[in-house]
C-alpha cells in the first residue's frame, strides 16, 4: 500500500484529470481606502468593541500611562523588556519579561503594557507581531487587562494595507476589542478567556 502522502497527491491529480482552468484572479477590490481622519476612524471603531480609547499627544504619553494604571488599580504590571524607558512610569511595580516571567506568575499580574506593530482603522484592529515593545504572545494574553500604545504612523486604513506591512513569518495576533463571544443566542458579550479589558492609547503629535 502506498503511503498516505503519495496516495493523497495521486488522488488529487486523478480528480483534476479534466484540467480545470479557472478564471484569473481579478483584484479590482479596494486595496487602499482614503478617509479624512484615519486616527479618528480607528478610535471610533475600537470603541465600538467596548474597548476604551484615549487620544494622547506624544509628550503626554508617560503621564497618561500612569493615569490609566492608577485608575485601573493596577500595581503589578508586566512589560516586554524592550518597552521605551519613559513608559515605565514610577509608582508601578514593573515586571519586565526578561528572564521570561513564569506562566503562573503572569497569571497573577494586574495587567500588561505593550506597543503594537500595525493598527487597522477600518476594522478597529490592533496587530502585534512580537516585535519592538510587544514581547512574547502569552504576555498580552494571560493578564486580564491590556494597555496598548498605538502610534499614528502605525495606523493603516484598510485590511490590505495592513497586511502588506506585516511579515507573516512572525507570530501575529490581531486584536479587535476585548475577548468576546457570540455563542449564546448569537449575541455578542465581551469578556471570556483573553483580556477582558482592552485600553488603547492612540498617540499623535
Amino acid at each position, binding site marked *: 500500500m502506498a503511503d*498516505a502522502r503519495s496516495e493523497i497527491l495521486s488522488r488529487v491529480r486523478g480528480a483534476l484529470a479534466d484540467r*480545470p482552468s*479557472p478564471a484569473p484572479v481579478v483584484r479590482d477590490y479596494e486595496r487602499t481606502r482614503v478617509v479624512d481622519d484615519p486616527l479618528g476612524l480607528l478610535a471610533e471603531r475600537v470603541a465600538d468593541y467596548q474597548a476604551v480609547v484615549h487620544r494622547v499627544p506624544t509628550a503626554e504619553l508617560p503621564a497618561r500611562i500612569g493615569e490609566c494604571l492608577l485608575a485601573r488599580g493596577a500595581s503589578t504590571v508586566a512589560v516586554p523588556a524592550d518597552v521605551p524607558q519613559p513608559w515605565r512610569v514610577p509608582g508601578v511595580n514593573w515586571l519586565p519579561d526578561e528572564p521570561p516571567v513564569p*506562566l503562573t506568575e503572569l497569571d497573577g499580574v494586574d495587567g500588561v503594557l505593550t506597543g503594537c506593530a500595525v493598527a487597522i482603522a477600518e476594522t478597529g484592529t490592533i496587530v502585534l507581531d512580537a516585535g519592538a515593545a510587544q514581547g512574547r504572545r502569552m504576555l498580552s494574553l494571560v493578564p486580564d487587562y491590556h494597555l496598548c500604545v498605538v502610534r499614528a504612523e502605525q495606523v493603516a486604513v484598510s485590511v490590505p494595507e495592513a497586511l502588506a506591512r506585516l511579515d507573516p513569518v512572525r507570530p501575529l495576533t490581531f486584536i*479587535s476589542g476585548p475577548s468576546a463571544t457570540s455563542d449564546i443566542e448569537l449575541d455578542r458579550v465581551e469578556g471570556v478567556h483573553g483580556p477582558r479589558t482592552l485600553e488603547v492609547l492612540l498617540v499623535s503629535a
Partner: protein
Amino acid sequence: MARNPVTWLGSPTFPKAAHAALADTQLRQNLRKATTTIRGKRAGVVAELDDWERLRHAGESIKDDVLANLDTYLLRLEESVTARGGVVHWARDAEEANRIVLDLARAEGADEVVKVKSMATAETGLNEALEAGGVRPVETDLAELIVQLGHDRPSHILVPAIHRNRAEIRDVFRREMADAPASDEPRDLAEAARRHLRRKFLSAKVAISGANFAVADTGSIVVVESEGNGRMCLTLPDTLITVMGIEKLVPTWADLEVFLQLLPRSSTAERMNPYTSVWSGVTPGDGPQKFHLVLLDNGRTATLADTVGRQALRCIRCSACLNVCPVYERTGGQAYGSVYPGPIGAILAPQLVNDPDDEQAASLPYASSLCGACYEVCPVRINIPEVLTHLRSEVVQAKGKRTPEALAMAAAAWMFGDPKRYEAAQRAGSLTRFLARDGKISHLPWPGSKWTSSRDLPAVPKESFRAWWRRNRG
C-alpha cells in the same frame, strides 16, 4: 472501508429527522431568534464595504485556483512548514487522522488535551477516538463546551450550541460544573466558562486546533476566533497539533486580505473578529516548541473529482448560508445528521461520504427549497442550488434501474429514441383525455396515481404538434 464519521451513525433520513424537529417549538423559537439577529447584523456590516461583490469574486477565483492546482500548493505548504520547524502528516481518512493525533498526544505523555473549536476534528470524530485511547479532550470554545458538557450534538458550524437558549445553557452548566452560576445572563455564563477552563489552559501540555487558512508560500497557519480560548491553546502548551482539510489553502499572504474581510463579516457579522492568530512553524521562545500539521483528505479528493460539486471545497465555514436558510431555520442543524448542517452541509456531507448506498446522506440534497438565498450570501459564491440539483440527479441515477423513476426514464428513452414510437406514444397519450374533467386529470391509474394523488395533470391535447404540422404544412 470504515464509514466516514462526517455523518452520524444511525441518523434518520432528512425528511424523517425534519418531521421530528418541526414538532420542537422551543428549538424553532431559539433558532428564529438567533438567525434573525445575525441576519440583520450581517447585512449591516456587508453594506459598509462598497467593494463587497468584487471581494466575493476575488475569493471565488483564489479558491478555484487553489483547487485547480491543489497538488502544487500542498507540496509548497509542506515545504514551507517543514522549513520553519513544523512536522507535516498526511491522513487519507478520519481514522488515519485520529490515529496520528492520538499517537502524538501519547508521545507527549498527555492524558488531557485542550481543543480549539475545529470542524475538521469534529468531522473525524476525534474526541471519541481520543477518549477510546485514554486521552481526555477538553473543548474550550464556549459553544463546543456547552455541547460537550450537555452530551449533545452540534447544530451549527460557527455556534454549535445555537439550538440552546440561555436558560438551557445555565441548566447544563449547573449539572456539570462545580461552581455554576444561578443566573442565565450570557455575561455570567461566559465568566463561568472562564473559571472552568483557566486551570486547564495553564497546565495543558498539548493543544489541538483546526485551521481557517494556511498560506502555501510561507507556511503560515491562521486561526480566527473570538473568546481567546484559541490564543490560549495556540500559545501556552508546548505541543500544538493542527488538523486541516487539504482545501484550506491560500497561495500567498496577500490573498488573506480578501478572506480576512469576507470571513468575519459573513460569519459573526463583525468588521473583524476579536482575535486572529497567525504562526509559521515554531518560533523559539514564543509559543509551542513542537508543531504538527495533519493534512486531511477524508472525501475531499472524491469531491474534487466532481466537476460541478467541487465548488463546495471553496467553503470557508462562515455559516452565513445556515443563517439565511428557511429550511435550516425551521428544522435546526441536528436534522441534517452531520457536523455540516444547513445548505453547505446538504452539498458537502453527501460528497464527503461518497457512498451511493447511504440513504441518509443521499437525502440531504433534498433538504432545500432551492430558494437561492444561500448562494446570494456565500462569500466565495458557491452556487449551492446548482450543486443541490446536480447531486439530486446523481441520487436518482444511483438508485438503480428498478425504481419507478428509473423505469419511467428508461421507457421514455426508448420512446424518444424513435420517431414512430414517439408518435404512437403521443396518440396513446391523447387517449387519456377521456379521464379529464375541465381540462385536468385528477385520477390516473397506477403508477400515474402516484403523481395525481398530490397534483392534477393537464389533459393532453387531442392532436400533437407533429400531427398538426403534418396536416397543415406537410
